[in-house]
């Protein structure tokens, strides 16, 4: 405790005063009582702590308030019909079912594309790669891929998948764009969970004569399964919320239910945008209800992944 550092008999920097004053001071104070300097320092600390606490609250409270407003204004719009019927009357009435279905399609196809590539890349980085320029370049590429703005991903999707590969504006093009965008999430999460498996497991397997791939398949992957699952859930939650990449590559404001992977589709995130910007005179609760649905999906997925992570920590046998 800082009290002990100024053990000077309670006289501070003043030094010896007159004799009677010194005696009074020595009688009135004890070496453990705080000096003026210490009191100032502690006051400054209390002030700083309160200020930083305030800053943290300023960050957190508006968010809770916003969520509260969303629930308050959006909940009246949620109903079974909302989730299962199609919109009509310029999307002012009816439900959001096509948007929900479209988002599910987009997410599934994006997952099918990004999961094998992402897990393969993570396995390579974690199990096979040595520390050379190629590995460093791959790591730099992952970080940069994660940092590219979503509109640039949209432009890439437009140029590469819609035009160059001639997919046209379709679920396929949009999902490819989403897959490229969310691959870093899967790679990083998978790589971390692979690296969390202790080296001793691998060494034991190798010493029994297993090849590298046999070790990975039978020892490493099963033990990192939940970590990979966490990564998948995180990727899905990010995919669901993205709008810009699908805006010109496959999603439309209002279209029929897609029959194949080459059709356009509606999507939940784009639907929120269109309800806010394109629909004239919507009922007051509509945008909030759509936003509430989107947020509920995203928050549920994120909470799932957090819960998984905590379970992982408890379940580990090593």
């Amino acid at each position, binding site marked *: 405790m800082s009290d002990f550092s*100024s053990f000077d008999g309670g006289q501070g920097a003043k030094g010896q005063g007159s004799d009677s004053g010194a005696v009074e001071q020595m009688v009135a104070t004890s070496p453990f009582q705080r000096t003026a300097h210490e009191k100032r*320092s502690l006051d400054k600390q209390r002030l*700083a*702590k309160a200020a*930083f*606490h*305030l*800053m*943290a609250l300023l*960050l*957190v409270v*508006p*968010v809770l308030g*916003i969520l509260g*407003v969303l629930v308050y204004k959006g909940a009246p719009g949620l109903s079974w019909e909302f989730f299962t019927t199609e919109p009509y009357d310029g999307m002012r009435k009816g439900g959001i079912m096509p948007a929900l279905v479209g988002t599910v399609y987009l997410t599934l196809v994006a997952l099918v594309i990004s999961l094998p590539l992402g897990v*393969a*890349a*993570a*396995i390579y980085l974690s199990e*096979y790669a040595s520390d050379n320029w190629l590995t460093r370049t791959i790591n730099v*590429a*992952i970080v*940069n*891929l994660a*940092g*590219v*703005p*979503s*509109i*640039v*991903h*949209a*432009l*890439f999707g437009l*140029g590469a998948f819609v*035009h160059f590969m001639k997919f046209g504006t379709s679920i396929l093009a949009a999902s490819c764009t989403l897959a*490229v965008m969310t*691959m*870093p999430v899967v790679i990083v999460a998978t790589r971390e969970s692979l690296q969390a498996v202790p080296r001793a497991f691998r060494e034991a397997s190798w010493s029994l004569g297993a*090849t*590298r*791939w*046999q070790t990975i*398949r039978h020892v490493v992957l099963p033990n990192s399964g939940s970590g990979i699952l966490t990564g998948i859930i995180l990727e899905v*939650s990010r995919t669901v*919320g*993205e709008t*810009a990449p699908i*805006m010109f590559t496959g999603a439309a404001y209002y279209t029929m239910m897609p029959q194949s992977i080459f059709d356009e589709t509606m999507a939940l995130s784009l639907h*929120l*945008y269109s309800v*806010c*910007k394109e629909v004239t005179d919507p009922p007051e609760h509509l945008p909030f209800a759509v*936003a509430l649905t*989107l947020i509920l999906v*995203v*928050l549920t997925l*994120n*909470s799932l992944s*957090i819960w998984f992570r905590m379970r992982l920590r408890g379940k580990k046998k090593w």
Partner: protein
Amino acid sequence: MPQSAVTQRREDAAHALDSRDASFWWDLIARILVFTGGFSVILFITSIFIFIAMQGMGFAVNPSNWEQFLTSAAWRPSYEEAPQYGALYLILGTASITLCAMALAVPLSIGSAIYISEFAQGRSKEWLKVIIELLAAIPSVVWGMIGMLVFAPIITWLFDIEFGLTLLNAGIVLGLMAAPIMTTLAEDALKAVPESYREAAEALGATRWQVVWRVVMPHARPGLSGAVLLGVGRAVGETMAVLMVAGGSIRLPTSPLEPVSALTATIASEMPETAKGDEHYQALFTLGILLFMITFVINFLADRIIRGRRSKR
């Protein structure tokens, strides 16, 4: 005899062990597949740049276009006689929104990070971290909607103006969006300061505040700067929220209560109006090239700073 019998038997034994059986081939296949996956990441990031450059090629290769691009303030692609593509106001718009967002977010994020890492205890610390993580998960369209339908009325009421879709609105929304990332990274940077530094300072009689201000923060400065830079990168690259909230009017931002437009939002809003391959289309892709380069440089700088300027000899 060419070899002794012992050597021959050793070779035979080695050959028998080195059997090219099924597991060997599976291992080879796995190795190839996995390497392909790893290499594909590099492939993707380079092809992003290549494809954008390709689609913007006609516009971007012409140097006179670049001069107009970067210095002219007139962005009038639909001007029938002589369409102009001056991106200056767009660049300034992005810069001003980012500045406003950082003015809000940097103190709040670093302050929250300091609070979480140095002052908070136990349960409240856990709750705070969870809420910030959930904050980071909110999609950008939802932020855009909140800015449009919640903040805009407040701003019109507070400042007595007509339209709430202004620079200030975009700044607040972007600030709230970038804050969680900055807070998490700043907290990591603060946690990386060795505990022995704090203990030494406390042993010399410093209060918690003095420890933080004079010992921890200077040591964490590279990490904190990196966190801020990455927040800037996030704000520069954000599309949907800015599209819905900043007002979309291409002009010089003179006050926070006026609408502005940004690079990202302009690309998003004008792309549906172009046809593949025409000049407007190529100009928008060139904006994309510009954006890609800006965020690339920001991420690169942030990475360098966080790693402690190792190569800045």
